[in-house]
């Protein structure tokens, strides 16, 4: 038995020695963390990038808030967020932070009504349903917008996120934009005091609950509704057109004037073909890259990655049901990337 024990110890020691750093040449690595919604897109993006450029980008989907937190703690090279950093958050970060948009997302309104009829919704209907004011699917106001639809005499059960989420932020941002009453009573943010309805955790939780409860209505990211083959409503936009959520209508929603720092909410878009409950998702990093002992190589790797996402990376988005950036956003983002520095000198020429 003594011999066995010695063998075990020797084996463990050998394993430990093999794991020590410096044993082999280190591959180039970048570390990122943040938003969960674009994670599948990023996983494809970074895998392709590793194959083409030999840089391993490790992105962990810990949520938008977590990503910003880790960037500030300087434990990651970049963060990811669905909710752009407000001026106050930027000030807390200690140094200027750049936002690079990577793709667009949409929040769709999914429902469980027997027969899966196609449903159209107006902003005021959405507000009143989620405020609990419209209680039946065959309410006259719903039927007025959906003439001829077979809507049953069934109670409406609203489903919302119980956890803090970027999805809720986009959805409530939209509702606050279209309804002064919503803004006052519920407001906008990652987590809210909902007036009524059921709570569920994460996009999968909401999708699951809507599927289980007849008469339920909830909001999820477009990709979850598509993947789970759930019906989702057309929504009337600012121009008065009913828009089906799709990659195309989401990209169209971003076809508005974009500020130079790309920090903009595009809910209730003025674009005629744009789906109104859409939003950008961003990668964020420090403008001055020489901090916490970072090397110039790392800064260059990071800038190269961002440049690649803005061009080659965009082509990968559509295959995964993500809406690519409109041309104007790409142009603005390029200018932002050029402003990134190492020791005050521009990284990208």
């Amino acid at each position, binding site marked *: 038995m003594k011999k066995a024990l010695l063998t075990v110890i020797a084996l*463990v020691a050998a394993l430990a020695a093999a794991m020590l750093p410096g044993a082999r040449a280190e591959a180039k690595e970048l*570390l990122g963390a943040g938003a969960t919604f674009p994670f599948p897109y990023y996983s*494809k993006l970074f895998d392709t990038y590793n194959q083409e450029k030999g840089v391993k980008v*490790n992105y962990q989907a810990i949520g938008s808030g977590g990503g910003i937190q880790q960037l500030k703690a300087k*434990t990651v090279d970049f963060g990811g967020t669905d909710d752009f950093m407000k001026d106050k958050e930027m000030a807390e970060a200690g140094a200027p932070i750049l936002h690079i948009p990577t793709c667009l997302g949409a929040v769709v309104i999914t429902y469980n009504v027997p027969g899966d009829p196609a449903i159209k919704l107006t902003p005021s209907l959405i507000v009143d349903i989620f405020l609990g004011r419209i209680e039946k699917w065959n309410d006259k106001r719903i039927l007025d917008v959906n003439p001829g639809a077979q809507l049953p005499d069934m109670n409406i059960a609203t489903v919302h996120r119980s956890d803090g989420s970027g999805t809720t932020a986009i959805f409530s941002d939209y509702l606050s934009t279209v309804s002064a009453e919503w803004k006052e009573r519920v407001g906008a943010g990652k987590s809210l005091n909902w007036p009524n309805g059921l709570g569920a955790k994460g996009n*999968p939780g909401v999708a699951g609950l809507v599927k289980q409860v007849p008469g339920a209505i909830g909001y999820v990211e477009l990709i979850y509704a598509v*993947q789970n083959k759930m019906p989702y409503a057309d929504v009337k936009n600012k121009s008065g057109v009913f828009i089906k959520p799709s990659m195309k209508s989401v990209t169209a929603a971003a076809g508005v004037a974009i500020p130079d720092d790309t920090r903009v909410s595009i809910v209730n878009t003025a674009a005629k073909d744009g789906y109104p409950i859409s939003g950008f998702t961003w990668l964020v990093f420090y403008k001055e890259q020489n901090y916490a002992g970072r090397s110039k190589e790392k800064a260059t790797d990071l800038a190269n990655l961002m440049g690649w996402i803005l061009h080659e990376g965009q082509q990968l988005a559509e295959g995964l049901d993500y809406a690519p950036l409109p041309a104007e956003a790409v142009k603005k983002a390029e200018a932002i990337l050029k402003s990134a520095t190492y020791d005050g000198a521009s990284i990208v020429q």
Partner: protein
Amino acid sequence: MHTSHSNIRLRIIKDRLFLALVVLLSFAMIVPLLLIIFHIVKNGIGVINWEFLTALPRPMGETGGGIANALAGTMMLIVLASLIAIPLGVLAGIYLAEQKTGRIASGVRLCMEVLQGIPSIVIGIVAYAWVVISMGTFSALSGSVALAIMMLPVIVRSTEETLRLVPDILREASLALGVSYARTVLKIIVPSGLTGILTGILLAIARITGETAPLLFTAFGNPYMSLNVLKPVDSLPLMIFNYATSPYPEWHAKAWGAALVLVVFVMGMNFTAKVIAKRWKVQF
């Protein structure tokens, strides 16, 4: 005469009823376990093949890929955590077994009981504050520190309790022959309780293998193969968590497969612990 006869029959019936009830409840107790195993095997067995165990994960939209990075990461975390926790835990356990009273001993005992009750997510945050922040990066090491803290109470307690069971006559005989106290402890008492100590270690490993919470902000995760202790690594529970909450059925299937691998590993640990305890037990 008649009454006493029926009385006995009544007693026999009662006895039978209680026996049936006890057997029934015992079976009811294992039903949840069987259901869990059945469910995991049913959903997970389909994706398990050689590629699943040896390949790196593929991104969404591509078929194939596996969990090799998570397997390697989990192994690395376990080995590192054991390297930290076993020496500390066993030494503390020996001390507590030898020093039955005293302020330090009761203090250590209390600390271990409190440590056992601390939620694993809190331990993860502590490891984040200690190791990740001060090193400036997520790493396998920080995850191992968190797991080692979780292993400690299990190892300390099992070591102490096993060594307490070693009969005093062994110690007395050794000391009477002129063997020094230190040698008595190391050569007589510890070897006599070695099976118990090993069992405790294996149970501690089984306990930490399935932990996700302490790894979220320490080991962090990594889709690539990494054997560097100072870099982030993936682990099976973390991978299951990430895949299970994704929108894709392919990833759900992989989460089930990874869950099956994890359950088999943990059950193997528990089983080995049982075998060791039975086979190698020193008879007094």
